[in-house]
C-alpha cells in the first residue's frame, strides 16, 4: 500500500509540471495516424504550449467518441452522413488533411513480382468467388508469374474503419454484385471466408505473418513494411500503380468541383493516371469551441497543417492536398468559433 501511495504522489507531481500546456484529445482513423502523430509531435516542438494527443482507434470509433462528446475532435476517412451529423451535439466541419491510397497488399511465398489485379478480380476475391491464387482470371493478367495452387487467405478489418469504407465504396462502384450483396459501409458483413485484423497496423501485421494472404491497407503501411502491393486497372482501362502522383491524379477532378462541405468520394475516378482506390481523409472539427484557449490552439494547428504541415506528406507516402482545396479550407477555418 505504502509504495503505491508513493507512486501516486510522484505521478501527481509529474502531472502538475506539465499542466500549463493546452491539451487537446482526438481519436479516429488509423489510415492517417502515422502522419497525424508526426504532425502533432512536430507542432508540439514548435509550440510547446500545445499538446494534441491522437489515438488511432479506427474511423468508426472516432466518430462514436465525437458523438459521445469524449474527444475534442475526431478523424475519419469517410465523410459523415447526414444522419451521423444530426446525432452530433455540436455540428462538425470536415477538414480534408491529406490524400492517400488503399492498396491491395499480399504475401505469396516465392512470388516477389508486382501483381496486376483488375477491379472485378479484387471484387470476386472478396466475394469469395475466386478462392485460389492459381485462378485463371488472376494468372491471365500476370503472365510469367508462377502462382501456388493454394487458397487465398482474405484479410479484412474487424473494427469500424474508414479504410473499409473507401475499399467497399470502390468495390460497390466496380461490381454490381458487391453493391447488391454487401454494399458500402465502415463495417460490412463479409461474404466469403475472411480473417480479421484490428486497425491498419493489425491488417498489415496479419498479411506479413500469413502466407498466401491478401489484405487492404493504406499505402504507407505497406511501403514501410516492405510488403508488395498490386497495380489496379482503373476506370479508363489503364493499369495504375498506387503512388503519390496517381492519387493526386484521382483528386484532380474533385479539386475544382469540391462541394462546400468537402464531402466527396474520389474512388474509381476516370483519368489515364488516376489510382482507383484513392481518398481524402478528414479531421472532424466542432464548429463551436467554448474554451477560448482550445479554439486558438486548434485553429493555429489547422492553419499550420494546411501550409507547412503539407510538406511532411511525401516522406510518409501521403499525397498533399491540391491548392484549390487548401484555399477553400482556409476560408472554412473562419467558421470555427
Amino acid at each position, binding site marked *: 500500500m505504502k509504495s503505491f501511495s508513493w507512486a501516486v504522489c510522484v505521478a501527481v507531481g509529474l502531472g502538475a509540471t*506539465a499542466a500549463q500546456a493546452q491539451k487537446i484529445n482526438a481519436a479516429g482513423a488509423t489510415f492517417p495516424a502515422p502522419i497525424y502523430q508526426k504532425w502533432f509531435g512536430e507542432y508540439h516542438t514548435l509550440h510547446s504550449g500545445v499538446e494534441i494527443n491522437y*489515438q488511432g482507434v479506427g474511423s468508426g470509433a472516432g466518430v462514436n467518441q465525437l458523438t459521445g462528446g469524449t474527444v475534442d475532435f475526431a478523424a475519419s476517412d469517410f465523410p459523415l452522413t447526414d444522419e451521423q451529423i444530426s446525432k452530433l451535439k455540436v455540428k462538425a466541419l470536415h477538414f480534408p488533411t491529406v490524400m492517400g491510397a488503399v492498396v491491395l497488399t499480399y504475401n505469396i511465398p516465392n512470388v516477389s513480382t508486382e501483381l496486376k489485379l483488375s477491379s472485378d478480380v479484387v471484387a470476386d476475391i472478396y466475394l469469395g468467388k475466386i478462392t485460389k491464387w492459381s485462378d485463371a482470371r488472376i494468372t491471365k493478367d500476370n503472365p510469367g508469374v508462377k502462382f501456388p495452387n493454394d487458397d487465398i487467405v482474405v484479410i479484412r478489418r474487424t473494427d469500424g474503419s474508414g479504410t473499409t469504407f473507401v475499399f467497399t465504396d470502390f468495390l460497390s462502384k466496380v461490381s454490381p454484385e458487391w453493391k447488391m450483396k454487401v454494399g458500402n459501409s465502415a463495417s460490412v458483413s463479409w461474404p466469403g471466408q475472411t480473417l480479421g485484423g484490428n486497425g491498419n497496423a493489425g491488417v498489415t501485421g496479419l498479411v506479413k505473418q500469413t502466407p498466401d494472404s491478401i489484405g487492404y491497407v493504406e499505402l504507407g503501411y505497406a511501403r514501410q513494411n516492405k510488403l508488395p502491393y498490386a497495380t489496379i486497372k482503373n476506370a479508363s482501362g489503364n493499369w495504375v500503380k498506387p503512388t503519390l502522383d496517381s492519387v493526386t491524379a484521382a483528386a484532380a477532378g474533385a479539386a475544382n468541383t469540391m462541394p462546400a462541405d468537402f464531402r466527396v468520394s474520389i474512388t474509381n475516378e476516370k483519368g489515364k493516371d488516376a489510382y482507383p482506390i484513392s481518398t481524402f481523409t478528414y479531421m472532424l472539427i466542432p464548429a463551436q469551441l467554448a474554451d477560448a484557449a482550445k479554439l486558438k490552439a486548434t485553429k493555429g494547428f489547422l492553419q499550420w497543417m494546411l501550409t507547412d504541415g503539407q510538406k511532411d506528406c511525401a516522406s510518409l507516402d501521403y499525397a498533399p492536398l491540391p491548392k484549390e482545396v487548401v484555399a477553400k479550407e482556409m476560408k472554412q477555418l473562419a467558421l470555427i468559433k
Partner: protein
Amino acid sequence: MRLRWRKFVNAAMLSASGVCAVIAVSALFVILAFLVYNGSKSLDWNFFTQLPKATGEAGGGMANAIVGSLEIVGMASLMGIPIGFIAGVYLSEFDDKHFASLVRYTADLLNGVPSIIVGVLAWTLVVLPMRHFSAFSGAVALAVMLIPIVTRQTEQFLREVPMALREGSLALGASKWKMIATVAVPAGSKGILTGMILGVARIAGESAPLLFTAFNNQFWGGINEPSASLPVMIYYRAISPYDDWHRQAWAAGLALIALVLLANIAARMVLARGISVPRG
C-alpha cells in the same frame, strides 16, 4: 507380490504428480525466461526516460506509460482495497446468512465478468458524464475488478484464523471490533496481504478495461486526462507491423512484470517488519 505392485503404483503416481508440478511451475519460468530474453535486449535508458514516437518511427520510450500504469493501478488500489477488505471482514466476521451469501455470490459473479465489460461500465459511468477520457476512469474500472478479488481473499484467510483465538480474546473482555482489529486481522494478515498483492498484480496487466477509459496518450497525462499505460501500449505495439514496436512491446512486458514483482516484494518487506504474526 502385492507389496511390490503397490510400491510400483506408488512410485508411478508420485513421479506423475511430480511431472505435473514441474509443468505447472515451468509455465511461469518459460514466460519469464522468454520475457527476459526478448525484453532485456530492448530495454535501454531511453525506454524509461523518453516519450513514445509517432506510429512507425523507431526509437522513443515509454516513460509516460510506466508512470501512467503506476498512477492508475495506485488509484485503483486506493479505491478497491479498502472496500474489498472491509467487505471481506464483513463476510467472515458478521456472517448473517442471507445478505452475506448474496454478497458472496455477487462477488464471485463480478469476478467472472469479462474485463472488457467492466471497461464499458466505466466508460458509461465515468467517461461519458465527465466528457473526456481520464486515468481516473481507468482506475475506477480496475477498482471494480479488484474489489471482488480482495473481498473473497480476505474472507478466506480470515476464516482460517482459529475460532479459539477469537473466543479467547472475547473471553478476556475485548469488544468485537477490538477482537477483529487486534486479533483476527493481524493473525490472517499475511494471507490477506498476499490476496491483495495477487489482486493488484492481476489488474496491473489488464488492457481491455483501459482501452476506452484511461485511453492512451503520447504525452504526459495527469489524473484527469487520458493516460498511457503499459498494458495498452503492449497491446498496440504488439499488433503493429513494425519490428521496432515489437521490440518495445517485449521491453514493456518485462517492465510490467518487474513492477509487479517489485510491488510484491516491497509489500512483503513492509509486512515482515511492521506486524508480528501470532501463531495459531
